[in-house]
């Protein structure tokens, strides 16, 4: 079941959170408290974000070749997600929960996605990249969590996945700079 979990942060002066509707970063003077009791999966992922050296990590992709027809489907999914864009935040998430699974793990999915258009190293399409990986991965629903976080001093935002004690995107080495403020589980 799709769930969005708020992880508000109070810096002593302001509260920071991500809007569930727009996915935008919100800053307020009202003290926000997390009222939700997180699942074991989410708590484990948050522990690893706080202790990133405990994560497993591979700097190289697991190369995957897909049958042409499946490859075309993933390219179509990718195009559709970019068509929706960041402005259709919730619809994009909803779209990522449905469809066929083509990869055993999200790590495999990222390896393949990195070869697609708009996903070259350093691209800023982290949100679409994560949603696409979650959409086509068999393991994501059971083990994965998408996080959306922010670098509070610049308001820059980033999305990444933690799955089964790994950060499965071999190319993403910037995620540790962002404080997680929202988690998405399927």
């Amino acid at each position: 079941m799709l769930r969005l979990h708020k992880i508000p942060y109070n810096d002593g002066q302001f509260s920071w959170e991500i809007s569930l509707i727009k996915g935008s970063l919100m800053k307020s003077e009202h003290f926000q408290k997390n009222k939700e009791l997180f699942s074991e999966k989410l708590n484990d992922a948050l522990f690893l974000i706080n202790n990133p050296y405990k994560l497993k990590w591979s700097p190289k992709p697991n190369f995957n070749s897909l049958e042409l027809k499946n490859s075309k489907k993933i390219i179509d999914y990718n195009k559709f997600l970019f068509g929706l864009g960041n402005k259709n935040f919730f619809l994009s998430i909803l779209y990522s929960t449905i469809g066929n699974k083509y990869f055993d793990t999200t790590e495999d999915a990222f390896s393949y996605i990195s070869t697609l258009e708009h996903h070259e190293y350093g691209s800023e399409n982290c949100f679409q990249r994560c949603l696409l990986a979650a959409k086509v991965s068999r393991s994501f629903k059971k083990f994965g969590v998408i996080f959306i976080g922010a670098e509070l001093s610049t308001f820059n935002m980033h999305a990444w996945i933690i799955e089964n004690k790994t950060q499965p995107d071999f190319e993403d080495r910037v995620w540790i700079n962002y404080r997680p403020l929202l988690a998405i589980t399927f």
Partner: protein
Amino acid sequence: MIFKNESNRIIYYNVHSNKIISELEALNQASSITHEDYYNFISNGLNTLRRPGTYKYFNGLAAVPPQTLIKVDKANYHILENIPQHKINPNYSLTDLKNEIKFLLQKYEGKKIGVELSGGLDSSLVIEALLEFKIDPVLIGFSSDSFEFRTERIVQNYYKNKVSESILLKYEDNFAFDNLKETPIHPIPVSESHFFQRHKTVALTAKNMGVDILFSGEAGDQILSFPVDVSPNETIPCEYGYWCLAEHWSDQYVFENYGTQYISGLALGNIPSIILSLRNGHKWDPMKLWARNTFKHCLPRELSHFAYTAFHNSWIGTGLTQASDSIAEISEIAYAKYKIEALKPNTMKNSANAYSTFNEEKRKYFLSNLAFVTWYFALINKNL
């Protein structure tokens, strides 16, 4: 005409007299700059002391980086090449690297050695090299309890336990752009002046701990990450000269005043050419995987089996916000003299506060203007 700077210091060339002049003469000359000089400085960009290229004069002055050869004409000066000519040698091995480090360290025998402990890979490699030769360095670093600093903290604690003396200063007390009004007087504006206070704090700490030589991990990004494709026996490109790799301005204008030498350990002697030779043919390696793998036998697991790219946006962004009032004050002096729109105190203050939202080009433009007003304030402050 060609001029050589064989010293280890920045020296100044004067196009009007066509000779090298003293630093004091350069300072005196700089105090009478015109609008054209301001625009020359802005078009030169921020890296005249650390990047090869062709640059315009600043009131007839050129800063000649250490150990370089420059060609001068009436309109421009060109930084042509490094004086020490190191070559790519496919036969280099890790033993050669170790021998080179041993050779270089002989120069510092009897001196008390320290290392800037950042908690990242590059300074860790410097520490490991010293430990390998039974040198117990004093470690000086900045640390924070903040979430963003959680990885560096682990590495800093690891190394603190491996040496006899170490000190971690509070990161939040030493943001970039702190105390710009105290920036030391210097003949030509430079971006390094933005970080003067941080270096001053380290220099004072080093002095108090009796450190003669302080190594930094500067240069790691270039020699461990940049793509290398140089033919065997060819000289390494100019951008791998010590002057491009190291923070020599901070050494000359900040550390020297406190009796400590500030040296980039990884950029010394033949080290860059040996490492580049070992990496030759490698593509861009932003995660420094070659280094993490090659030196995994001595590095902590946190560095050999993990990689990340640390941002310093908070250090810069918060620093600018905190310094915005003093930036306005400093700008007022330069604006009163030159009436250049970009230097208006309010414009500068607003830019400091909005810096995080700027694109790369706009950031560079603002930082150039900030270097200019800081330089002018230091000059006026010393009544020159």
